[in-house]
């Protein structure tokens, strides 16, 4: 039933959206959306903060989850009526799943959570399950939210929670070794939150073991560069250099004859870093093997020549 026809709203007069004679790119609103927005304008005009207004905002959000004004009004109703945030969070469980890519859904969820210390662990669990429920373990919003939880509640998390986080990372990498979001998240936990439980050598070993499984996976190679950089080390790391050479030789001898490009690139960039003239030759090899980036490799070989 339309709001304009509802008995429980008949004391309010809906306010239409006046667009004037030449609206620019008007939207073909559904009757349901227009009706709800007409009533929303009336509610805001009366500055009414009530249960029925709360229901109205939910209806609009389900049609337009990005409507920041409607969200903002909803928040002010909750604050003014002193409503139960647990109930709101329960609704958010549904809306976060439904409108996974809405900035406003996740912002609103923060507001529900930020005053309750005991929600940290259950929120982490919710987000972990959401990756599976939505079959979208690379969703940007979900990761931003997870990292906010970990940062915001860092002080009250226990060693067990931290161990769980690494197990969670491990299980996602096992599911999909190419999921760059997980690699980025591992870096975040180790080096941004400072949950460093390992030595650099151990971490390099760990990454090399995963590169062995997927030798052209740029996510792991980029991560490897990242952990060296954060430790102020250059690319000319003996173990990685040897590993790369072994990988190139093994692959060149294998059926497809194509050495993994990131391994070749590592040797080339390490040589350029050390001003070793062999860099030019390496970049020209890359240029021949990777035509889509031929302009980039030409530029690098040019830099190597003038180094």
């Amino acid at each position: 039933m339309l709001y304009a026809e509802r008995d429980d709203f008949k004391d309010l007069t809906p306010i239409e959206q006046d667009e004037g004679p030449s609206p620019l790119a008007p939207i073909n609103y559904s009757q349901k959306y227009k009706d709800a927005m007409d009533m929303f304008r009336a509610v805001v005009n009366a500055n009414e903060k009530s249960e029925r207004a709360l229901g109205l905002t939910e209806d609009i959000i389900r049609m337009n989850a990005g409507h920041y004004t409607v969200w903002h009004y909803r928040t002010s109703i909750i604050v003014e009526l002193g409503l139960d945030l647990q109930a709101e969070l329960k609704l958010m469980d549904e809306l976060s799943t439904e409108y996974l890519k809405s900035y406003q859904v996740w912002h609103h969820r923060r507001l529900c959570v930020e005053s309750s210390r005991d929600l940290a662990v259950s929120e982490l669990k919710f987000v972990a399950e959401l990756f599976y429920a939505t079959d979208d373990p690379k969703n940007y919003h979900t990761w931003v939210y997870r990292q906010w939880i970990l940062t915001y509640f860092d002080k009250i998390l226990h060693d067990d929670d931290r161990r769980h986080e690494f197990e969670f990372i491990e299980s996602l990498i096992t599911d999909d070794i190419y999921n760059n979001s997980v690699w980025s998240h591992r870096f975040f936990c180790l080096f941004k939150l400072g949950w460093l439980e390992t030595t650099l050598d151990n971490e390099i070993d760990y990454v090399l073991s995963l590169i062995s499984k997927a030798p052209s996976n740029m996510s792991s190679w980029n991560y490897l560069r990242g952990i060296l950089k954060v430790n102020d080390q250059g690319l000319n790391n003996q173990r990685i250099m040897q590993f790369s050479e072994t990988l190139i030789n093994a692959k060149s001898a294998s059926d497809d004859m194509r050495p993994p490009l990131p391994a070749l690139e590592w040797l080339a960039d390490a040589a350029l870093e050390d001003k070793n003239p062999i860099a030019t030759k390496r970049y020209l090899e890359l240029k021949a093997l990777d035509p889509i980036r031929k302009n980039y490799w030409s530029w690098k070989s040019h830099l190597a020549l003038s180094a």
Partner: protein
Amino acid sequence: MEGTAKFSFRHLELLPNVYESNDSARLTLAFFVVESLAILGESLEKASEYCDYVYKCQLPYINGGGFRGSLFMGKQEYDNDEIPPYDPSNLTMTYTAILLLALLRDDFSRLDVKGIIRSIEDRQKPDGSFAPIPSGSESDIRLVYCASAISSLLGDFSGIDIPQTIAYIKRCRTYDGSYSQTPNGEGQGGTTYCALASLELLSSQIPSEQLISHKESDETLRWLSQRQIHGFQGRTNKDCDSCYSFWCRGAFESLKKLSNLPDDLEIFSDELDGDFLLSCSGKLGGIAKYPNEYPDVLHNCLGLSALSMAKSRSSSATTLKSINSTINIEITALEWLKSRINQL
């Protein structure tokens, strides 16, 4: 390209119901449509009426300044001397409103510059980021870009705390040389564009060697070159998406200027990118996110922008007008805007 013009004209008259979920961002949708037509070299009837509509969305200084996304709260003016709490201007909409007015060749005499600067100042957070609205929303690098772009267009950076802003952008830099939406996140093509374009715009105020080091620039160049698969992916190991052809190209152009790389340096394959973008074209015109998807106004506009940037190498795009990728606008509209703003 004829179908693409028809697609844009159709959307200018009426956006289909699917855009209902973007109701509060209508000026930005309108910008995508009008910018697409400008790149295609089409001219508009009713330009001055459209300008009138855009100005109806403007709030004066006393109401916080800036532009709203549309008249969705049903009110054009407010009597009280306050920022209307449920109808404030939005920084993204202010940015696209100014671009729209330039594309529509407005004379800018009705632009409340002082109000706009106030609306930028009001939205900066203690961490240096910007929010689209005064309260109750996210704040991140996308809005840093909007604040930087508006300030540059108006030639007035007084609404921005520049050192704080730069510190925020630097905190968004990631271990692989890209930039994320908020500090410590995963690097992404769109947010890398926002970061580098902002730094380029801020380099008019701060020497660029303080904005990005030589080594950092090398890492970012490497990351950008990795993004091309056929078209461009937004993140490592993701699928191609037509809008990233623009974000990655735009990021590269800004990086060139910031790091004094040669103007004619090329790192992408324009032919392959052009092929991918054309494979995203719909049967009834318009460019979609992926091949065989329905086209939408955002991907149509950014796809055309990318094609325009690739036009020297992609034969299908030779007739497209040139754009300025840092501001993301057709170039004659930007020249128009600059000459008018200078006279204010």
